[in-house]
């Protein structure tokens, strides 16, 4: 697998107290790969994802997409935020929210664009809700709108920042399976940040674990599980359980080390 999305020697220091959130972080994501990025809270995994998206600048190091440095948001990479209540604009209907991603970047007529957006809403199971306002929808449905909006721009990569962590357990499970389906059907590359080890293992082909602050890459492991994954079977597979135990021990060790270092 080629180095499609490459992170090299990335470091972020916060100007206020000069401490590094993470340093010397290097890894690459191959085209079509599903990679989960996990780590204890405060290790800077969300900041790392923002930098990869071009939404903020690193203190050192580079991000490259297919060889070209990423300095600002790129249309090939779409970001899905944790805070869907903010990211989905509450003054726009579901359809208008999805349209927002495409209407300024296409010469196609409004009808054509609406049709594209409706298809993408269909894809996330919201085909019947184009005229609804976000406040009329559940959290899971709002996050589906955000995913549809991202997909309508036909990105190659989805950068997802704890997209399901604000949802209740049932909705999270539903959206995990939806995401896996979209990933395989649309040949997407996904980089998925989460603090939930189980979610990372269930979804990803590879799990990258950051250590406690300042974060560095502590683990980079393949997940030896076949697709399609099944919520019950996969999560009780021996290979899953063994890897989970190993990573879990490491994560606890990271958290302890982080406590010992102190903020």
């Amino acid at each position, binding site marked *: 697998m080629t180095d499609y999305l490459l992170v090299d020697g990335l470091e972020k220091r916060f100007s206020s107290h000069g401490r590094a959130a993470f340093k010397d972080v290097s890894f690459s994501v191959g085209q079509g790969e599903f990679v989960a990025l996990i780590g204890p809270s405060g290790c800077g995994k969300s900041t790392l994802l*923002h930098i990869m*998206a071009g*939404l903020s600048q690193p203190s050192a190091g580079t991000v490259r997409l297919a060889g070209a440095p990423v300095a*600002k*948001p790129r*249309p090939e*990479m*779409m*970001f899905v*935020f944790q*805070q869907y209540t*903010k*990211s989905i*604009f*509450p*003054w*726009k209907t579901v359809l208008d929210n999805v349209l*927002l*991603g495409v209407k*300024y*970047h296409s010469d196609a007529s409004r009808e054509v664009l609406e049709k594209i957006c409706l298809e993408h809403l269909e894809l996330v199971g919201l085909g019947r809700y184009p005229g609804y*306002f*976000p*406040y009329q929808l559940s959290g899971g449905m709002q996050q589906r709108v955000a995913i549809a*909006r991202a997909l309508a*721009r036909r990105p190659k990569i989805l950068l997802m920042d704890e997209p399901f962590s604000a949802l209740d357990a049932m909705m999270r499970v539903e959206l995990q399976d939806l995401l896996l389906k979209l990933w395989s059907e649309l040949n997407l590359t996904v980089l998925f940040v989460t603090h939930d080890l189980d979610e990372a293992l269930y979804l990803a082909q590879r799990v990258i674990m950051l250590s406690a602050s300042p974060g560095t890459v502590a683990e980079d492991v393949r997940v030896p599980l076949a697709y399609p994954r099944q919520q019950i079977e996969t999560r009780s597979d021996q290979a899953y359980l063994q890897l989970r135990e190993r990573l879990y021990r490491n994560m606890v060790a990271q958290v302890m080390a982080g406590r010992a270092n102190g903020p």
Partner: protein
Amino acid sequence: MSEPKTSRLKTVLRDSRLSGVALIVLLLAFWQFSAMYFVHSPTWPTVTRIFEAWFENIADGTLATHLFATLWRQMLGYGLAVLLGIALGLAMGYYKALYNLFEPLVETLRPIPGPAYLPLLVLFVGIGSEMKVVLILVASLFPILLNTYSGVRSIDRVQFDTARTLGLTTLQTFRELVVPAASPQILTGMRISLAISLILAILGEMIVSNDGLGYFVLLAQRTFKVPDMYAGIFTLALLGYVLNRLFLMIESRLIRWHTESSGRT
């Protein structure tokens, strides 16, 4: 155990404003009664006499003329304040450098009560309608300006990041994000200023003018047409009420997403 049923009266008192309307009627009745039997003074005419004067002034077109004179000055000053306040407020809220440049000045000028500008304006703009329009403009500007920039400044970082990942230009970001996100607060400022604009319009007319409701009320008082004075005041009460009601109606249409969603959470 079953809950005791709330009585019908209690429900009406709690759920409708019927009692409030009844109170107004009761107070007017009390006024009428006191003027008829206890207070015999030209300064305290009966309510029926006031209504008579009111209808006379409506019938001969006097009130309409003055109402129109007040309204157009108020709306011109207020309209200019809205345009200027929103434009400047959006720019100050969005660009930190502009905020730092203008905020101290705004905070210095803001505490000056609107009427204090009047003598100054007479010197520079004269005593015509222009003076009143500028007075209304100056006094109405600050609530709109302040609410607009604080509305823009409180927009969540995630929303700006969303706009950037969707590849919106600055102009598109204003149109799709900044203006709608700040609109609840902009409208709050506009509603405060609407009341202020009427106050300043009346004040300006009372100081120096030859038309408008402020002029009408003061002239009636000075020429001992006391029922006319009360009729003018009643007209102002009605005008203020109607303007506020209209505003609320338009507001609830414009930001239904906001009222509905904040009502739920």
